[in-house]
């Protein structure tokens, strides 16, 4: 891996951080196997698995045929019988072919069998728009899986978190779904050496603030932080929370922030209607934090249309920094 190293901070890209986590996992646990389309000699469609096949061989880094349903089912069966598969969907959109195995089998087997089994399965979903891949290669479907009991659903936004959460997922006994925004893959950031885990189910307060709480997911956490800097220049002090986990959702962190700021905005890339922000909003609106709200709860989500190919249109249908700035300003200045 071409990693730029300095004594103080070691930086890796998001993709490199995932690869390092898988490398560590393959090294320390012989039960770990990687499965997916073109993850071997090709290195993965987004070069996430990279050269791992050369280090661990094709028995542990397995190219599957183009068979998403069957491949996911093989991973479920393997997880049920002693392996710890990490299954990569080439694009999260193709998970639509495997919902049966993910939702009817992996998520429910333990419950249906009265707790007799566990399914220690990790699935990886390259997701999101911004790459000009159009409607069938750009979706953000985390809300679907967030709706499903039995699953855990992660959306780490930094290299450090994605490494730590993937390693945490491998310590979890249940199916963990890891959504990776494709635009993040090349983003670099500090990543600690060696083995560590980042807790599942804990949101991160990326910026403390007094006037408004912005809960954002995945790539939107970065856009929200950018927006917060601009807002600071207007004396609007935004608290930015990176949700990190969709299921189970970190109620406490979000409610504590809303009690403090009295204003809530949810920013997410998935389609606004029935997207992750709907749950964040509803969770707050039914809590005691409701009494602390000084304004309506805003949602900035994806537009009510598929992702278009044209790059200008593509930008227009998901929240951008200026949209976040404007919405937050209006929310704080009471112009909703």
């Amino acid at each position, binding site marked *: 891996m071409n990693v730029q190293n300095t004594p103080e901070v070691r930086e890796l890209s998001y993709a490199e951080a995932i690869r390092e986590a898988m490398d560590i996992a393959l090294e320390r646990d012989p039960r770990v196997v990687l499965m997916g389309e073109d993850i071997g000699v090709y290195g993965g469609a987004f070069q996430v698995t990279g050269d791992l096949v050369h280090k661990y061989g094709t028995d542990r880094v397995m190219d599957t045929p183009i068979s998403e349903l*069957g491949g996911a*089912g*093989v991973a*479920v069966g*393997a997880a049920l019988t002693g392996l710890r*598969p990490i299954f990569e969907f080439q694009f999260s959109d193709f998970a639509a072919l495997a919902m*049966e195995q993910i939702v009817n089998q992996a998520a429910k087997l333990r419950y249906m069998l009265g707790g007799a089994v566990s399914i220690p399965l990790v699935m990886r979903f390259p997701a999101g728009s911004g790459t000009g891949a159009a409607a069938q290669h750009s979706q953000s479907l985390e809300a679907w899986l967030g709706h499903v009991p*039995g699953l855990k659903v992660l959306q780490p936004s930094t290299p450090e978190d994605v490494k730590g959460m993937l390693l945490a997922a491998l310590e979890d006994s249940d199916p963990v779904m890891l959504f990776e925004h494709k635009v993040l893959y090349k983003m670099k950031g500090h990543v600690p050496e060696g083995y560590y885990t980042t807790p599942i189910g804990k949101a991160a307060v990326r910026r403390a603030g007094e006037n408004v709480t912005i809960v954002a997911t995945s790539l939107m956490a970065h856009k929200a932080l950018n927006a917060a800097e601009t807002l600071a220049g207007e004396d609007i002090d935004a608290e930015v929370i990176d949700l990190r986990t969709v299921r189970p959702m970190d109620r406490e962190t979000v409610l504590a922030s809303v009690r403090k700021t009295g204003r809530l905005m949810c920013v997410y890339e998935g389609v606004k209607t029935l997207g992750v922000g709907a749950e964040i909003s509803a969770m707050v609106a039914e809590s005691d934090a409701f009494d602390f709200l000084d304004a309506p709860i805003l949602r900035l989500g994806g537009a009510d249309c598929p992702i278009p190919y044209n790059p200008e249109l593509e930008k227009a249908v998901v929240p951008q920094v200026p949209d976040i700035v404007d919405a937050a300003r209006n929310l704080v200045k009471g112009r909703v």
Partner: protein
Amino acid sequence: MPDSNVSYAIRAYSPEALKEALRKMYLIRKFEEGAEDSYMRGLIHGTMHLSIGQEASAVGSCMSLTDEDKITSTHRGHGHCIAKNADLGRMFAEFFGRETGYCRGRGGSMHIADVEKGNLGANGIVGGGLPIAVGAALSAKRLGTGAVTVCFFGDGANNEGAFHEALNMAAIWKLPVVFVCENNKYGMSTSTERSTAVKNIAERAVAYSMPGVTVDGNDFSAVAEAVDAAVARARSGDGPSLVENMTYRWRGHSKSDRNRYRTKEEIAAWTERDPIPRMAELLISNKIVTAEEVEALEAEAEDTIKQAIEFANASPAPKVEEAARYVYTEEPVA
């Protein structure tokens, strides 16, 4: 040099094993009758799928399996459970929705599994078990356990995409799995003639470069011979096979079936071909058992079922406040 006039079963198994096989066939028959009766008496809600008439397929397919070997089963899976040595009391307890059931009353008839015995479970999704079986075979190969997986599925399931994807992966990776199609001529109301573009499902094995064979699924010896060969092949590392057991379900598809899609004559013709007396005659004519012993076996099976039902009836229901337990392995502290 075995005498090939003597049927495979007689040559291959000890008298004890053969007696045990016949006993299991009776147990399955009595179990299903007991389940049907319990259903009629309102002890079971929901629906269930009975395998009466298919006993030879279930028992014959598991003859060379140990508890280390795995099976994946279907919605019509009671016989498979019993063939894989399930506890009948815990099965009935599950039907009755009791905490002592295999699924603590949370799964019901369509989800019984017995992982200790290598039964990875029935499945409510037609074809759902096919890729899971391939995954179990992958584990066996990677972990070097030497275990073989027998994957039961129906004729209707063979038209699911999962069938195609599963058999292809099993073949390219040469995995130790045997695909056993229980072809009872219908997927619910739809005959294989109307649903499937080949006459025999075993013909589809060619599309995966694996051996495919069709046998009389009501002939215990024929089933055992075909599946044993496939299991041996899998165990020796030569990869998967497809075995098709031609059989018939005597009862309707489920409790709501009005049998509009098949004739009384067809049903009668198949009940003539009851696999259990055939098995009994085979053992009697080969002096493995006497007619009296057979009657004793049947009576004993009847008893065992009675006791199982009693156990189930006496068992406690799950606590309602625990309805949402067993979703996650590490349970969130409420």
